[in-house]
């Protein structure tokens, strides 16, 4: 499991716009870079990121090799109700990881 850094507010006022920041440890190998032996290394990137709020997709992004290693994504969403916010990263070589945080909306 790759290490993940998530900044999600634990509490929020109903209807307010909250900012979410997500970072995951990953090499994001571009597929254009030769190694020490001069052989171009195969692409190994995370190509999709999804954020679900209470099961509904509120943000998603398609990533390319132009995204830096340890991809960082910041975005916003509206705090609608208390519930789980889950984050899914999908990548090459069957990479898939999901993390969940809980938000309390008052």
């Amino acid at each position, binding site marked *: 499991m790759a290490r993940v850094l998530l900044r999600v507010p634990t509490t929020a006022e109903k209807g307010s716009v909250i900012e979410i920041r997500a970072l995951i440890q990953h090499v994001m190998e571009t597929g254009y870079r030769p190694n020490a032996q001069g052989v171009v290394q195969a692409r190994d990137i995370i190509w999709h990121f999804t954020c679900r709020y209470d099961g509904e997709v509120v*943000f998603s992004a398609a990533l390319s090799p132009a*995204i830096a290693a340890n991809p960082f994504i910041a975005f916003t*969403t509206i705090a609608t109700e208390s519930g789980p916010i889950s984050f899914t990263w999908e990548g090459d070589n069957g990479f898939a990881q999901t993390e969940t945080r809980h938000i309390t909306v008052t």
Partner: protein
Amino acid sequence: MNLTRRVLLSAPAALLLPTPTRADQQRLAAALQEFTGGAALREGRVRIEISPLVENGNAVPISVSVEAPMTAADHVRRIGVFNERNPQPHVITAQFSPRSGRAYVATHIRLATSQALVAVAEMSDGSFWSQRVEVVVTLAACIEG
């Protein structure tokens, strides 16, 4: 005489400026065309925030925001970021909905060399808006070894 000397001395500085080839420009244009589906692309509403002088091209902070009320009737559907001179023109394509609250996305990107970046927003009414910025990169991302 003085003028000639000045022109000659300033010539190396001109070499530092990005000089996109026609192939780069065509590739970027093709990527934009694919994103818009041939619809007209207008300047404005989109704001890219990136340092104009980048020291390290391996991780360049960039954020894109769009002026939009983000209501069901008027919101941003997608934001796409494209580059001119990396091996691939695509950078990131993000999907939004009225639940986003704001049309905003930030990330860290790689830049192979000094080049232009274009951000395009698709609105819920089907119109496309864009902004183009030029960035100078002093240390390129090691994408080609």
